[in-house]
């Protein structure tokens, strides 16, 4: 049976907004992440100082941008999905997922930096068709819009909890509450605002996936014009977002002291979604592979060699195995799917797979990037990471995690107001000779 919310409202207020996170483990993590972030930023500065050429050196940076888009920035759509479906299982998971929107503060400057390193765009095969300002201006607008939407989403969903923190006499958080009081009108507006901002975020996120996958990958590779890549990117990113959320939930339980709030139900529901997305990953990969393989056209055979079977065969095998095969084989079994450890292990595996996939696409693209009209040439060997690339790979996710931890000092990892509402609408009742969970869904 579903694990029903059992913590009283007063206890929940004490646990979640009584005091901000702290302690040796927290500050230790902040310190380590800050050091890694600084190292990553320094590596980017060194790369930028060296100019745009050779473009291959930007491959891992582009891969990290895509990785952030496919993990941290892909988590809020999961929260939106649970809100849209009015799934009770999603309530403790929503804030954990929404908070990752702060990753936009890392992704936006990173994308702008990469846009300045793109080769000449005139007459290049792209979705823009020589539109003025494309791609730089519009891609930048998109990612800045996404960042602002994400921050607005975090802020609006956090308003009632900031007010609760204010009432718990926490001055810094209280100032941000803007005098919120829980009148009926404000709750109605909040509900509408959360859904509208969530929808806006998802649309912008989908659009940013489209432009990043086309402008920073496809348009750079001679002869690559696969229409399935943007949706493939969205689907694999959503899979990464679910995996990121599962891992964050596991950390919240283990080190955040939130075992009473984050239960098996969240892991079970997210694991089911992860299983579906693993199958969809296979489906989109298969669409591209089969269409290219079947026609036996030299242009397409070259692309298969570059992206799947020769140059980047190792990242492809890792991506396919870890995003599709292994999660499928694990999550097919209900005991694993419904188990917190099982879901967490599967999520960790998927994250590694997503990283491998982004390395495959973006490092390959920047390695072969060149002037418009250049032919496909010989297949190059895989471009391996150097020290600067490793620092960027470590530093950028560290920056996102650092911002996440700092944000937790303002808003709790589990939404207090949504938890309290869930408690009103989900009850356990005696039914003849058994106990049942009863779930209300007001319109």
């Amino acid at each position: 049976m579903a694990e029903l919310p059992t913590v009283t409202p007063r206890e929940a207020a004490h646990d979640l907004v009584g005091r901000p996170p702290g302690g040796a483990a927290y500050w230790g993590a902040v310190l380590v992440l800050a050091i890694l972030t600084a190292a990553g930023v320094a590596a980017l500065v060194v790369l930028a100082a060296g100019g745009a050429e050779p473009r291959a050196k930007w491959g891992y940076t582009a891969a990290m941008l895509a990785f952030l888009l496919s993990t941290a920035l892909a988590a809020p759509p999961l929260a939106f999905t649970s809100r849209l479906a009015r799934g009770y299982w999603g309530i403790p998971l929503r804030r954990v997922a929404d908070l990752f929107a702060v990753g936009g503060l890392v992704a936006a400057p990173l994308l702008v930096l990469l846009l300045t390193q793109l080769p000449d765009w005139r007459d290049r095969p792209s979705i823009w068709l020589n539109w003025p300002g494309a791609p730089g201006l519009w891609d930048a607008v998109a990612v800045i819009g996404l960042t602002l939407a994400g921050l607005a989403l975090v802020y609006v969903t956090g308003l009632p909890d900031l007010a609760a923190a204010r009432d718990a006499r926490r001055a810094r958080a209280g100032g941000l509450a803007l005098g919120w009081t829980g009148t009926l009108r404000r709750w109605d507006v909040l509900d509408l605002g959360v859904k509208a901002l969530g929808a806006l975020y998802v649309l912008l996120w989908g659009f940013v996936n489209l432009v990043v996958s086309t402008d920073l990958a496809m348009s750079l590779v001679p002869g690559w014009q696969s229409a399935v890549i943007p949706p493939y990117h969205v689907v694999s990113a959503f899979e990464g977002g679910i995996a990121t959320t599962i891992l964050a939930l596991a950390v919240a339980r283990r080190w955040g002291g939130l075992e009473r709030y984050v239960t098996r139900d969240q892991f079970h529901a997210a694991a089911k979604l992860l299983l579906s997305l693993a199958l969809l990953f296979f489906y989109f990969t298969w669409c591209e592979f089969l269409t290219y393989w079947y026609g036996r056209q030299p242009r397409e055979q070259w692309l298969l060699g570059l992206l799947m079977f020769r140059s980047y065969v190792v990242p492809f095998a890792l991506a396919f195995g870890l995003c599709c095969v292994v999660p499928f084989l694990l999550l097919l079994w209900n005991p694993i799917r419904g188990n917190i450890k099982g879901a967490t292990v599967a999520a960790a595996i998927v994250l590694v797979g997503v990283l491998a996939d982004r390395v495959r696409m973006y490092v390959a693209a920047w390695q072969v990037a060149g002037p418009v009209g250049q032919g496909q040439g010989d297949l190059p060997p895989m471009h391996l990471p150097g020290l600067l690339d490793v620092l960027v790979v470590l530093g950028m996710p560290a920056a996102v995690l650092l911002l996440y931890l700092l944000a937790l000092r303002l808003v709790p990892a589990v939404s207090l107001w949504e938890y309290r509402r869930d408690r009103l609408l989900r009850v356990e009742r005696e039914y003849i000779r058994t106990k049942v969970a009863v779930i209300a869904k007001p319109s």
Partner: protein
Amino acid sequence: MQERQALSARRIDHDLLGFVLHTPLWFWIAAGVLGLLVSAFVGSVGLLVLFGLQLLGYTNVQYWTIFITHFVFWVGISHAGVMISAILRLTQAEWRRPITRCAEVLAIFSLITAAMFPLIHTGRLWRTAYWAFPYDFTRGIWPDVRSALIWDPSAIVTYLTGTALFVFVDLLPDLAVARDRSTGLRHHVYRALALGFHGSARQWRLQLTAGILLSALILPVFVSVHSIVAWDFAMAIQPGWHSTILAPYFVIGAVHSGVAAVVTTMIILRRFLHLDKYITLQHFDTIGRLQLVVWFGYLFFFLMDFYFGLFARDPVEVSIWELRLTQPPTNILLFIQVLTALIIPLPFWFSRRCRRNVSLMFWLSISVNVGMFLERYILVVTPLSVKQPFVYTWSPPYQPQVIEYVITIGSFALASFGLLLFAKVFPIIPLWDVKEGQVNSQEVQVGRREVPAAIHD
């Protein structure tokens, strides 16, 4: 559901078995009209067999035309049925109860209609068996599994079999009710079909578990079937068809048209079988919101197909889009497609009042399917059209002939006729599912308000 009513089992049996056990006059009229149209369909196919495909508007290069459009269209219609039923069953959505079976049955008859068209299209229907059936009829030649056209029979047989089994398992408890409510020959037929189902806890638990398992199994099949249909086109290196996105584009288009078809079916059944208490305005509200979400997905894929057609500025691909956008009558058809499938429905689906307006939802669903039919037509015919200038022929470009219009109308009559006959013989709304909804319905007190709730098993 906010609008649910407390209904006794006896009331439910009476309402939902009424049409099965008693025959109103309109049934005979409808069956007569549909039967005539189906006869016209069969007759037309007979004429094609007798006189050959010269009766059609085929040209030297445009040989995949209206029949293949029908094939894709009807496979698409069949999709949402199973998708709605399976996904809603897996997510335990309460609002699924009255609509799952009509959606599944629509899927079956749409698929049967779809499967006829590749056969009709070949001209000599029976020879398809030699070519597609996995048996060496002559000269040691077996089907070539490397051909995308051979994947189709495997997919359609799997999907049809799976859907039929899905429907039968779901129907078992209702066959038991029909057995208990009927006499004479009908009683014996229902008794045989009910297989002795008597409603023990074990049988119910297996019923629910089998429903979940079959739903989980049929969902990947639903994705694969229309993808395989799409690969009939995508595997060819014909510009305009050879695109990696065709498979998911077809699937999302199928969902878009299929959900609209389910809405059409729900409204017709509600009207003629007096099912207002079961198919409520809340159902249309919810399905309208589903259509909104699907709309966004369909728009995304439609735009991807458009943008990536022009992405590499390949001259042939560009000329296909020029044909679609600038040359009549194709550009007029494209305009109608975008208007009916995309532009017209959207603002209405955003409005809760409009979603709860049954007449409006009916016409919107028709509009979507008009647009989706044209979408398939444009997608199938126009890439072949660009070859026309290079063919040494005096024939004009493809234009459908009278017989093709008759077969088109006949195909809609065929699917409708199948659905009508099914609804006459078996309850089209699951009695046991509706009764379970009554058992599970609860209320939760929040302050002064009693909020509708349901038991979550």
